[in-house]
């Protein structure tokens, strides 16, 4: 007669890959909203991005509201 046993494995360890992925998202998101002064778009648009400040202007209100330094 065959028996069926259920084993619930509880593994609390947090995978390094998950920590790394979330840490990257944390860093990028924080930089975009809190600190970008044209740096990200300068990769595609060069020096003009530092004049346009597109991301800075788009995130401007949250930047102030969340307490980040702004102009």
């Amino acid at each position, binding site marked *: 007669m065959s028996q*069926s*046993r*259920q*084993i*619930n*494995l*509880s*593994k*609390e*360890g*947090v*995978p390094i*890959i*998950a*920590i790394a*992925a*979330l*840490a990257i*998202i*944390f*860093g*990028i*998101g*924080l930089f*975009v*909203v*809190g*600190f970008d*002064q044209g740096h990200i778009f300068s990769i595609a648009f060069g020096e003009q991005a530092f004049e346009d400040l597109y991301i800075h*202007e*788009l*995130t*401007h*209100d*949250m*930047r*102030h*509201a*969340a*307490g*980040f*330094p*702004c*102009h």
Partner: protein
Amino acid sequence: MKTIIFIIIVLAAGALAGLVHGTANLFLVEPYLDVAIGIENQNLFSSGQEDDTLEFWVEYERYREWQKGGQVFAGVILGTSIGALFGIIFALSRNSLPGNNNIKKALILAGIMWLTIYLVPFLKYPANPPTVGEADTVVLRSILYLSFIAISGFAALAFFKLSKKFKNQKKLLALFGYAIFMAMVFVAMPENPDEITAPMDLVNGFRIMSILGVSAYWTALGIILGILWNRFKPNKEVPSFN
């Protein structure tokens, strides 16, 4: 641990809490931003950099609507970002956190992180509306603010580790240690170099609304992640049958 489920619920909780933050700010913070930017406009007119024309106001209104949409969009991005950090710390510390369910545990951690990486840095470098803050000092102010957040966050972590070596009431020594250490950092760190020239009732009102908005974010983040954790249990492996 179910890695993909873990990442998805952490990001979803952060994005939803960020949506709450951005939407709340439309009502809490935007009226103050409009007044502050109105002062900036008057300065532009009086200095001759802009003309007080109908075209200016049409363009201005369109621009502000775009920025208010950006408030919500940025809320989701920032919420997801901070939520990612919160998720990492929650997963690593869940077993050490007080509380008999994941919502309570997440809310307690949210409260600790709100205090250590938001409120304590805010007391030294409070949020300011537009009209306060020189463009020339933004890099210095960013470095100071980020440094203070990092110092406070790592100090909280270090004193938490220290508290685990103590028992019962002696654990409070670690809390006092954190408070004393941060008081010293508070005194040692340079002040915000910019002079406040805007009306103080505007500045103070803005700061209170800023605190309310960020507090709404941390509360929502704790509740949502706690609920999602209860629902999806990412710490449990899929049952296997032998």
